[in-house]
């Protein structure tokens, strides 16, 4: 075959939307504090989310101390235990994971990966962070108000959440609801940005089906969040009215501690529908970015294209859509109409199919790869194990009648920690090891990273795998002390103590990680622009860390998909997305 001279760029359609002028900061304040640069906002989001996440981590230690050694620690009583579980859950799910994946990774990676200079609405993007910070401050303030934070459980089920038998009835619940409302306002401003940026600001040649799966995951999750959070918003507003104004949206006629209350006509189950209409998509709002990111980690570090890219994209979109019709599987024993069980069990188990496809494609990407066991790859492997484990136990809880004995037991706690706690955190950590060099220009220490991985992964597995069996035995969740129960053998208490010791050890490993983050910032090995020899655009920036506007004078042009690893006949084992093809039938036959 003769090499015909070939003008690669002629085949690329021009960009649909012209470039817009960037906002250029005029002072230190507008550059580093009230910044409109998505990269700075991303770091602000990440640091804030991590800070409040550390609070939630400490709360989990306190909970584990109580569960492992009930009655030993006089500073933890039933009251505080309920407050700890509530704040731990709410912080981890919303203020840490959602904010970190979308506000943190979304802000940093979307513009860089699609070849944009910034988000399309930088000012709104900045506001998004400051409203989020306010939401976090309001949430944290509940630790210091009279009565303390609410102890209603992170699900905040009424009537309990606003009655006096629950801790934090004075200010805790009011501020919690206010904080959620703020969070949703802040998120909506950021979320609109991410969606419009992906749809409108992709660089020339970056078709949707050439986007890295990271962007697909974050994009789909953001669309879902924009549709799901309004349900939580209205539920929060209505409950706030029930608590403050004495309305009865969720409050039926009831008697509290012998006193007839003035409520009447409301429905506690309505709240649960609204909550889970948000709450189930929320699981995937956390999971889809993780799915996307881990796909790119595996592909890059196995030096192999992601297997079945198109199927992976459709699986993400399909899971996103299906996740809106499964919510009531959280409510099989709520007292809703029993016929619902047939519908929601069916939809829930159907969602297992696209999810399983993703798992198969991850491990098939490893097959015949060139697997570099770097720290990000180790975390990706840890993710697959914990996600498969947690996903499969979801088939127990999703299958309506199987859920009946297991619901509200430690089985549920173990399941959701494995699948939406440990698994996404594995991805977050892997992603930090992966992209830290791009953000700082330095590598994280490898030895500390491996130590961190093994303690975290094996420890988390040892915490949550046996916990399923405590639930199978029948131990209910949200008990600060199980007390004397005939069916619980003393060996169960030993297991609880064991879990606590492991949990504290895993907690210690996170301190090592924090040390690594700070130490490497100053002393880490300089990374260069593309230390992992990756194909995606963020590694091809003219400067590392990327400068304001990301790309220097010219935007990159994209000639190929994101996964041209180990292309036969190519000089290197990766071809960046912005490297022109040399012939029309070029290397890398894929999109």
């Amino acid at each position, binding site marked *: 075959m003769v090499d015909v001279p070939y003008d690669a760029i002629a085949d690329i359609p021009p960009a649909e939307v012209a470039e817009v002028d960037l906002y250029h900061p005029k002072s230190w304040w507008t550059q580093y504090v009230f910044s409109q640069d998505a990269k700075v906002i991303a770091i602000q989001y990440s640091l804030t989310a991590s800070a409040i996440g550390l609070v939630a981590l400490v709360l989990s230690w306190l909970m584990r101390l109580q569960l492992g050694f009930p009655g030993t620690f006089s500073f933890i009583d039933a009251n505080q235990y309920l407050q700890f579980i509530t704040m731990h859950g709410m912080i981890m799910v919303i203020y840490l994971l959602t904010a970190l994946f979308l506000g943190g990774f979304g802000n940093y990676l979307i513009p860089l990966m699609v070849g944009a200079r910034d988000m399309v609405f930088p000012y709104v993007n900045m506001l998004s962070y400051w409203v989020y910070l306010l939401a976090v401050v309001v949430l944290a303030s509940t630790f210091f108000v009279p009565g303390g934070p609410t102890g209603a459980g992170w699900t905040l089920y009424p009537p309990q959440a606003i009655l006096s038998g629950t801790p934090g009835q004075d200010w805790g619940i009011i501020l919690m609801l206010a904080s959620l409302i703020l969070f949703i306002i802040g998120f909506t401003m950021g979320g609109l940005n991410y969606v419009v940026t992906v749809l409108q600001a992709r660089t020339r040649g970056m078709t949707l089906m050439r986007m890295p799966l990271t962007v697909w995951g974050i994009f789909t999750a953001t669309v879902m969040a924009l549709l799901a959070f309004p349900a939580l918003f209205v539920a929060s507003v209505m409950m706030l009215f029930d608590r403050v104004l004495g309305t009865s949206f969720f409050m039926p006629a009831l008697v509290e501690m012998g006193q007839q209350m003035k409520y009447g006509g409301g429905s506690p189950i309505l709240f649960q529908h609204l909550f889970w209409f948000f709450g189930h998509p929320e699981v995937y709002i956390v999971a889809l970015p993780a799915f996307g990111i881990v796909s790119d980690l595996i592909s890059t570090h*196995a030096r*192999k294209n992601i297997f079945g890219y198109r199927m992976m994209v459709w699986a993400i979109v399909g899971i996103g859509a299906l996740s809106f019709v499964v919510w009531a599987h959280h409510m099989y024993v709520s*007292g809703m109409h029993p016929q619902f*069980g047939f519908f929601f069990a069916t939809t829930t188990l159907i969602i297992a199919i696209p999810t399983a496809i993703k*798992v198969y494609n991850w491990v098939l990407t*490893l097959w015949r790869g060139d697997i570099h066991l770097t720290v990000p790859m180790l975390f990706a492997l840890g993710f697959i194990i914990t996600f498969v484990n947690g996903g499969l136990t979801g088939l127990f809880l999703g299958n309506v009648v199987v859920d009946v004995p297991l619901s509200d037991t430690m089985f549920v706690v173990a399941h959701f920690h494995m699948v939406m706690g440990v698994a996404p955190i594995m991805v977050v950590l892997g992603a930090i090891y992966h992209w830290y060099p791009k953000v700082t220009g330095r590598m994280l220490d490898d030895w500390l990273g491996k130590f961190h991985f093994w303690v975290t992964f094996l420890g988390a597995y040892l915490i949550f795998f046996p916990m399923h069996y405590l639930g199978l035995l029948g131990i209910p969740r949200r008990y600060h002390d199980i007390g004397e129960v005939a069916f619980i053998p003393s*060996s169960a208490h030993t297991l609880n103590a064991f879990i606590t010791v492991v949990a504290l050890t895993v907690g210690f490993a996170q301190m090592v990680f924090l040390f690594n983050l700070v130490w490497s910032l100053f002393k880490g090995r300089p990374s260069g622009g593309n230390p992992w020899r990756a194909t995606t655009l963020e590694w091809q920036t003219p400067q590392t860390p990327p400068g304001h506007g990301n790309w220097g004078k010219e935007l990159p042009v994209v000639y190929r998909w994101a996964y041209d690893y180990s292309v036969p006949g190519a000089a290197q084992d990766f071809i960046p997305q912005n490297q022109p093809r040399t012939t029309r039938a070029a290397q890398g036959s894929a999109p």
Partner: protein
Amino acid sequence: MAVAIILLLVAVGSVLFHLFSPWWWTPIATNWRYIDDTINITFWITGAVFFAVIAFMAYCVFRFHHKEGRQAAYNPENKKLEWWLTIGTAIGVGAMLAPGLIVWHQFVTVPADATEIEVMGQQWRWSFRLPGKDGRMGTSDVRNISSDNPLGLNPDDPHGQDDVVIESGDLHLPIGKPVKVLLRSVDVLHDFYVPEFRAKMDMVPGMVTYFWITPIRTGTFDVLCAELCGLAHAQMRAKVIVEEENEYHAWLEKQQTFADSSGRRAVMRATYKSGGE
């Protein structure tokens, strides 16, 4: 190499833990053995998938980890393989869903001869009500609740007068008779939870929920609350005693009816008032 072995050990260890750990469900005391069977089917199918995926992953790490000169294969897609995996997964999912739905149908279909009883939850104790000689329970409303009438029975309903009300005692059930357990709450969500029964359901103020069981084993069982209901959630306890029919009737004879207790209370109140005035 070491990484592959550790990954494999995680899979093997999980299976061994499942087979040999001392923590397993409580011996069942009702007809819901089908639920246990469905859980077992699910364990087998998911366990096989779990082991296969992790073992395959460990093999890949062992066989394809980076060595000088190794080059990864380039195969973007394999339609046939992807379809087969999809179909196989769908079959596995169906094998769990079908028995699940069949058993759920049984679970929500209450037999016609089931006796109705009522459990009421309030912060933080359980009360019970059994139909009297007429075999029917009277109506109730949360607005009727007062210190004389803690369950809110309708004082004008003749069916309610002979209802047996157990305010702070244990619930007795006869063995082998299907029971429809009606669930009410006066304040917040509760959940009547007896692990050995397998069945459970939330109790929601403002509505009546239910589940049904047929006790198949005599014994004394702990009642716990499974839906967070506030500060003393963990202390909300009672006992259910399943016994032979004759023992059950002997126990039932000794219980007070609504008419008894409200009559007695009225007398007490009258005495107290006249004494006080």
